[in-house]
């Protein structure tokens, strides 16, 4: 065997060893939205493949005075927002963002997590409690003086965007509805899909779930909603890997039966679907057969709708929406590697002037931009996007990820909705204009005039 054969032998590398692929070319540094705006973050190459070579499981023999940690030398990796642009851009295939996430988890391992970081990870718990007493929680979260106290005590920035809790969870609404309808036979995988609603639709944005169900139904799909929990991403982002693994396991167990029967799993939160598709495997090291089957069956909803369209199965009889629509593609959507399906769907809506804002990151990056010390960084990261949206003068904007929507709304005052809400509105316009009953479906690739 030649050396080349030995070296080229394997393609797939573990995250840790993927730093072997780094050619030091700096492409990751040039795309990093955070390094661009602050010196507090030395950049993905530094905290990723470079720092990686200095990390070791061994403690310092004698603590170097003034150094931050006895075990891990790292500090600045905490300023990585986890947006994933570096991994997407790396021409050599280094899993930089994943490496950073693991390093952060390591850095914080063995120490009690900050109450804030722990809390921001517990979206299910916070969601359940928040919904339970939503009139109070909503008042508290939108009260200036209380938010100032929260900033001092908990470390969540007073101006950070927060969603409003719904009156009840989407899960409980759905269960009630199912009870009312009684048990019915499950349609086959060509007539039904599994819906992964995620925390945002469950606790805050039930209207997104409703839009998803309506759109799926309009295109001939019943919705199956198994018991599910948070995808685990907020925990990954807050270095709570153990908790995240438990969530992953629960979701895989809940979904794998359907996936094996050929049902597709559709999500409206593009970060949840990316977590299931990629992060369970890459970050959490959950790589059994079940996890792979579930990952392969998972689709982002716009990816799914566009696929229907490409097969000529999408109902393209959209009504006219005569408006400008600034659109922001979230970082997590880019990590899917599926292009910008929402933009292609918008092109099917007559009159709709959707414009890709072509900006990398809004700055929220999940829960990053909510934290006191990172809020100004997040706002600086998103500033060009906010300027563009404001300058467009549009009444509303669109974005596939919930936290980005909250950030954009808060920063620009422009109402920001999920792309499927826009599409649903276009269907409703068509319905109101006459064709109340769905007619024949479009041919492949046809576009509205």
């Amino acid at each position, binding site marked *: 065997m030649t050396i080349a054969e030995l070296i080229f032998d394997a393609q797939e590398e573990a995250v840790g060893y993927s730093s072997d692929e780094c050619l030091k070319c700096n492409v990751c540094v040039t795309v990093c939205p955070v390094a661009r705006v602050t010196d507090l973050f030395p950049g993905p190459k530094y905290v990723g493949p*470079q720092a990686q070579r200095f*990390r070791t499981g061994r403690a310092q023999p004698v603590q170097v005075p003034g150094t931050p940690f006895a075990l891990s030398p790292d500090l600045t990796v905490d300023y990585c927002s986890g947006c994933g642009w570096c991994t997407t851009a790396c021409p050599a295939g280094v899993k930089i963002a994943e490496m950073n996430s693991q390093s952060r988890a390591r850095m914080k391992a063995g120490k009690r997590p900050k109450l804030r970081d722990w809390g921001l990870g517990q979206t299910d718990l916070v969601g359940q409690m928040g919904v339970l007493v939503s009139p109070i929680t909503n008042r508290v979260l939108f009260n200036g003086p209380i938010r100032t106290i929260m900033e001092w005590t908990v470390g969540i920035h007073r101006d950070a965007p927060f969603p409003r809790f719904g009156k009840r969870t989407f899960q409980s609404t759905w269960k009630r509805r199912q009870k009312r309808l009684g048990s019915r036979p499950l349609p086959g995988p060509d007539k039904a899909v599994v819906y992964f609603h995620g925390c945002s639709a469950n606790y805050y944005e039930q209207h997104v779930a409703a839009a998803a169900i309506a759109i799926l139904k309009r295109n001939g799909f019943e919705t199956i909603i198994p018991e599910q929990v948070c995808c685990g991403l907020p925990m990954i982002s807050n270095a709570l890997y153990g908790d995240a693994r438990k969530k992953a396991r629960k979701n895989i167990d809940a979904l794998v039966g359907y996936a094996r029967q050929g049902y597709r799993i559709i999500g409206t939160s593009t970060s949840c679907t990316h977590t299931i598709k990629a992060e369970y495997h890459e970050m959490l090291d959950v790589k059994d057969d079940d996890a792979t089957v579930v990952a392969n069956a998972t689709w982002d909803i716009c990816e799914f709708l566009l696929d229907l369209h490409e097969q000529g199965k999408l109902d393209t009889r959209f009504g006219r929406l005569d408006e400008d629509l600034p659109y922001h593609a979230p970082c997590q959507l880019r990590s899917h590697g599926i292009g910008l399906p929402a933009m292609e769907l918008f092109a099917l809506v007559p009159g709709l002037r959707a414009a890709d804002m072509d900006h990398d990151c809004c700055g929220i990056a999940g829960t990053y931009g909510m934290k006191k010390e990172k809020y100004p960084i997040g706002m600086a990261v998103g500033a060009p996007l906010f300027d563009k949206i404001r300058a467009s003068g549009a009444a509303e904007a669109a974005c596939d990820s919930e936290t980005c929507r909250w950030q954009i709304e808060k920063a620009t005052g422009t109402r920001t909705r999920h792309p499927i809400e826009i599409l649903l509105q276009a269907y409703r316009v068509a319905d109101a204009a006459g064709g109340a009953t769905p007619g024949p479906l479009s041919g492949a690739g046809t576009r509205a005039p």
Partner: protein
Amino acid sequence: MGDSHAYDVLVVGGGATGAGVLRDLARRGLRTLLIERDDFGTGTTGRYHGLLHSGGRYVAKDALAARECIAENRILRRIAPASIEDTGGYFVATPDDPDDYVDGFQAACAAADVDCEEIPVADAFRAEPALNPRIRRVFRLPDGSVEPWQLIESNVADARAHGSDAWTYQRLVGMERDGGRIVSATLRDERSGSVTRITPRFVVSCAGAWSGQIAAMVDVTVTMHPGKGTMLIFNQRMTDTVVNRCHKSSDGDIMVPVHTVAILGTTEQRVEDPDRYEITRDEVAALIREGEKLFPDLGRMRLLRAYAGVRPLYQPPAEVTAAAMKDGRQISRAHTVIDHDAMDGVENFVTIVGGKLTTFRRMAEDTVDLVCAKLGVTEPCTTADAILPNQVPGKTYWLGHRLAEHEAEGGGDADLLCECEFVTRPMLDDFLDRHPGCSIDDVRRGTRIGMGPCQGGFCTFRAAGLVGERARRVGAADVAESADRAILGFLRERFKGTRPIAAGRQLQEQWMISGVYEGGLGVRSLIEHETPEASREVVDVHR
């Protein structure tokens, strides 16, 4: 430098042994000068695999060498902690290692006083997950890794504090013999060409594999059998523990984590000339194949470089060994002090050969004992007790220290010149201040600049800029030329070691770096002013 210098002893060769001999002589009150034709640690010392031996590799075939190793291992941990990383060592029994060797290993260790403990294999896999899962037994021994250049610097600093001196880039070009005595030595400055004559009372050759050439200057024959050992450097540490095969030592059976990298060693091949040898791709492939018995994924891991060191192997004539035994002096098979008075009738000349880096201090002690006896000096050796300068007791090397220092408050303000190895501008400035006129390759040995994955690609032009800036500050006439020389010299040296392993990721890296230097910086226009042979060195990178 004047015509004559009043030194008691001249030590030839600036490797670890020479530095150790210099220190020991200086501490016993002999004013000594060390000379080195290149920079410190550019011979075998700087081209070894980084292992601080526990002695475990010798217990079966050479208990005396094993005893010496463990004794020196304990001493070095005490006197030079900053140069040592306490990695610990595993001796692992793979399915390829014979049962009888493995079964007898612990007893052999005990007989040689080498600490050895068998640990559950599960513990080893937990600590080092990259290990071959088919390993069936694991012994833990006190191996470590050692940083040779820092060790030399510490020894030289101690010698200087005791009134002695050391000069680099001074080649010994001749020695004058008057009957049974060496009366003078002539040195040439390799950079300025100026010649110095000194008249020491005694000469000690610590030239290792080059000892034959030194002895020949006074018509003395020392027959060396230089043995080439090839090693491979991996981009990152797949293990934080030294890992040895538990068998009779052989090729490719040891992995040593040193600083940010891991080094797989080694081979054994006789060479004629210690300055001329090559590393073949077959050797590299064979090493990887053996190494995969320790770490099955080795073939997928990125290689940075291949290099070789030349062991100073010497087999003393049988009658010498017998004679020495007769006067009660114990000669370790690990090293030999050659008394040219007894052997060749040159009364003030001694050569030390053989040995290994771990035992350099002991080699120096044995050598200096003989020199002192001949010069009538009765001071005892103190090198085992006195901690070396710039060392803190118990504070051994920690891999994370550079990252931690850069991450500490204010640390990040320093510009990173070498991003791979975290070498900052102040570190480079400090080194250049202390070593005027040095090359970037000297800086590399002192700071590790250019030793990471890009092999100097992104730091060479920055360092060269700094060199040029300094040249301008002192009003040099050749500001641009000094920067050009710095770039060319360093690139040539770095590319040399990557040629035998140029494949996969490291080849991609080479292409990109070549693009930067040839396409971006137009380094070819510099090559045109160089000799044809030199230009081939850089252009040949892709072949």
